[in-house]
């Protein structure tokens, strides 16, 4: 089945098994918690922002291959970018995985490996969990410093 191979590309499987930036940041400036009650996926996302710049981003948690790989690739794609760019990519990413509009796949670069998700409506939430968690982190809660 081709859709399945589209969904689970080598790149996705690799990031699912060996997630990048899967670690704790000691002094994050922003933290978001994400939970998908449908499948029990949980993610904690930590960021270090310097003004509009994303200096560092890391995540921890347990999830399926799609949600883990999505969080992993998101951190890789966004470290070193600005929050403004991140928000723009979020919009493109959501359009792509929901199969809506005409997302700019070039701008999404490596994240385009998740385009196959749109064929699996039940898995869209897996792919978007990390991104929604990013929004939650940006919108609010400063992390408490424990010094």
């Amino acid at each position, binding site marked *: *089945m081709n859709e*399945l191979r589209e*969904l*689970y590309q080598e790149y996705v499987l690799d990031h*699912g098994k060996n997630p990048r930036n899967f670690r704790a940041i000691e002094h994050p400036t922003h933290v978001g918690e994400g939970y998908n009650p449908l*499948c029990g996926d*949980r993610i904690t996302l930590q960021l270090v922002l310097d003004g509009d710049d994303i200096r560092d981003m890391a995540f921890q948690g347990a999830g399926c291959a799609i949600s883990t790989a999505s969080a992993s690739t998101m951190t890789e794609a966004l470290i070193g970018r600005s929050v403004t760019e991140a928000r723009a990519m979020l919009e493109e990413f959501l359009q792509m995985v929901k199969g809506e509009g005409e997302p700019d796949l070039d701008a999404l670069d490596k994240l385009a490996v998740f385009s196959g998700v749109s064929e699996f409506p039940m898995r869209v939430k*897996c792919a978007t969990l990390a991104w929604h968690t990013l929004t939650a982190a940006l919108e609010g809660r400063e992390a408490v410093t424990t010094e």
Partner: protein
Amino acid sequence: MSRADFPALDQQVHGEPLVYLDSAATALKPQVVIDAVTNVYARDCANIHRAVHTLSQRATKAFEVSREKTRAFLNAGSTQEIVFTSGTTEAINLVAQAWARPNLREGDRVLISGLEHHSNIVPWQIVCRQTGAELVVVPVTDDGEVPLEDIEAKLDERVKLVAMNHVSNALGTVQDAAGVAKLAHAVGAKVLFDGAQAAPHIPVDVAAIDADFYAFSGHKLYGPTGVGVLYGKKALLEAAEPYQGGGDMIRSVTFAKTTYADLPAYLEAGTPNIAGVIGLGAAIDYVEAKGRAALHEREQELLRYGTEALASIPGVRLIGTAKHKVGVLSFVMDCAHPHDIGTIVDAKGVAIRTGHHCAQPVMERFQIPATARASLGLYNTPEDLDALVRALGEVRRMFG
């Protein structure tokens, strides 16, 4: 064989013949049930208990015949003890609000187990909040059992109600219902069984169990969705407060005074799911014709086959290894998350459930986010389980 009775089995999914292993979520429907429902809308389409015309008489008769079939199915003493609801969920909520709420006060306890479906947890949380009673939970063992000794240890005269599933949907564990009832009654507590997963798999005898309340859903018993049953001992149902007010549940209404109807109408306000109830009657006939004991025996054989087949796959761990189980195989794989397993086996035409199965406390107990669950219906065969095993091989090839 029975497979031909189920039209839904005659289809392909992603180019593969459908293998349906999700009957614990909802069972497929045999043609006789579909026909019974269709006949209500095509022919006997009338409201019940209300008019003298012929169609209404036919519909009313078929509806009440279903009630008698349900009574016999549960071995209840009287059709007055059979209340139709929209499902197990509503049946439990009915007991919580109409019986428990007026009877519970501060200091009282409701005892449940750690193996419950959310629908046998949340209604008690609500009623405990309303009354000041306390919800107490009996823990689950590593095998997924709730032993009688552990229940007994939590029982004293503060416990007014014990509410437990007869069979667990997440793990398939069968509870010794008669044993639970005896313990509960010894301290003066009433006992409710959530029989949603029991009714389709094991013979249920509310008299032999001595259940005070017993709930099940039509759709898991090869019947329509949107219909369920609450059995309650007559004295308890009579003492219940009205659950909902409306038509059919009254004898007379004036603005000065309303007198209520007798059971079971008293607890069945409004136009019920007429086609659903009649379809449930057809489902009960279908199951009884096959013989519940025979179905149970056949399923046990298939369960043994499936348990061994899954255990032989490297990296598969069964969750729920109780001595007495029905055809539910909950498992995790070390190489893949249940959600990924579900998607990959679906691509092979195999339908299983993945997730927490509306039993998040069970997942927490076993420290897993979710399981994959294959559950059996009377149409399943060893070949279906072989197809699952092959599909799990594909999961291992991709993720292993």
